[in-house]
């Protein structure tokens, strides 16, 4: 048959883009976390190791290409997600006078765009403070000649006045990420058509562990820096 003009703009394909970009962002979270864990090291070489990692991430060609794909994915996922939310709201022009959605669905599953918006605000401030500094700011160099992002991070969370709100912002945002992933991770597989008696319960368990472990590990870093 000749494909209907609507095939590529169909509601199912729109969701597939959310799912693919969402899963790509999940893989990025793992890589980003592994690097950041250096910040928890307290030995003498920790600062230089972290700076070397940051240098590698901003200069290595393959990573640079991937990072452009990543920036695009974040923007796309956010804009597309908000557009879907607006479209979905239009599908119910008159609201119920009395509704009880918690009887049949999880809070996170209904608040994906709110949670996503919190994450987006977080990403913007986070990139402004560290990513922009690393790329365009003038940061002193460490002993190995790499930009000393380590010290920038340490001073950020230990700042006498911004330290507490900054740490709080990071913790709250990671909580939002946890809820976003708790629904999002398994939802992405359902969107792609993966629903299996044997494998779906496994995907759901992996999603649960992922949605708790990753944001928790991210959140521990600023709290640890702030407290030490």
């Amino acid at each position, binding site marked *: 048959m000749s494909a*209907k003009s609507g095939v590529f703009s169909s*509601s199912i394909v729109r969701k597939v883009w959310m799912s693919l970009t969402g899963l790509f962002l999940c893989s990025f979270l793992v890589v980003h976390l592994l690097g950041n864990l250096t910040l928890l090291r307290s030995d003498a070489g920790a600062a230089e190791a972290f700076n070397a990692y940051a240098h590698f991430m901003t200069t290595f060609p393959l990573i640079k290409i991937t990072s452009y794909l990543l920036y695009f994915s974040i923007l796309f996922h956010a804009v597309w997600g908000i557009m879907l939310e607006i479209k*979905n709201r239009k599908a119910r022009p008159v609201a119920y006078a009395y509704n009880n959605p918690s009887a049949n669905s999880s809070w996170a599953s209904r608040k994906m765009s709110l949670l996503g918006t919190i994450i987006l605000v977080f990403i913007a401030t986070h990139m402004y403070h560290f990513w922009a500094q690393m790329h365009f700011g003038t940061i002193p160099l460490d002993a190995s000649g790499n930009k000393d992002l380590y010290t920038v991070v340490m001073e950020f969370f230990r700042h006498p006045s911004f330290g507490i709100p900054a740490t709080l912002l990071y913790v709250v945002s990671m909580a939002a990420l946890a809820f976003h992933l708790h629904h999002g991770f398994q939802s992405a597989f*359902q969107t792609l058509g993966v629903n299996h008696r044997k494998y779906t319960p496994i995907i759901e368990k992996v999603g649960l562990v992922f949605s708790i472990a990753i944001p928790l590990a991210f959140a521990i870093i600023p709290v640890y820096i702030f407290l030490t």
Partner: protein
Amino acid sequence: MNLTLKIWRQSGPKDKGAMKTYPIQGVEADMSFLEMMDMLNEQLVGKGEEPVVFDHDCREGICGSCSMYINGEAHGPGRGITTCQLHMRSFNDGDTIYIEPWRAKAFPVIKDLMVDRSSFDRVIAAGGYVSVNTSGNTLDANAIPIPKEDADKAFDAATCIGCGACVATCKNSSAMLFVSAKVSQLALLPQGQVEAADRVLNMVHQMDLEGFGSCTNTGACEVECPKGISLENIARMNREFLTAAVSAD
């Protein structure tokens, strides 16, 4: 028992409509919800008021017409039932009960609690059928062997009564559960294979044209569906759709 009913009243498609309050006395626990509505309407007619218009037909959970959003849930509290199968023993003396029509752009209100669900009919007309030879040499369906597992899944999907509770419940007014049940019941059987690709593309296309929202996998539909149609069907439809979309030329 004595109850306070808050019911959506709307005189026609163009009217703005509003919630109105009706006290009702002497409701019995073993009345069905629709019998309680009948009782209210008798009282209203007795007082010379307009009775509340609502859809109903079989009153035994098979026609799918008794669409009512009761206390914030499609077909009210209780699982695996339609409004006609809901009994007043689910409520307590003194309760306030909110009764609203299905809310979706694709289900416009005709009057009071009655909505126009012909968008579902148009989705079915777009591909929810198999073409069979009726010129006297029709093949006996039972002549084709079908794995028991597939037959069971197709049957489960085929129990969808087209009531629209999935749409009413979904925060996006998405019709994915209904459409996926109708795609699955045929896609799982050999007779459905010939038209499978066209079917899923056309039915999803029509679903989008009707103004239903898109699925965010909240799973609310599966919980509220009176027939327990599974989300598995939505995943199957997504697979069918994506393979058809990339293989269609």
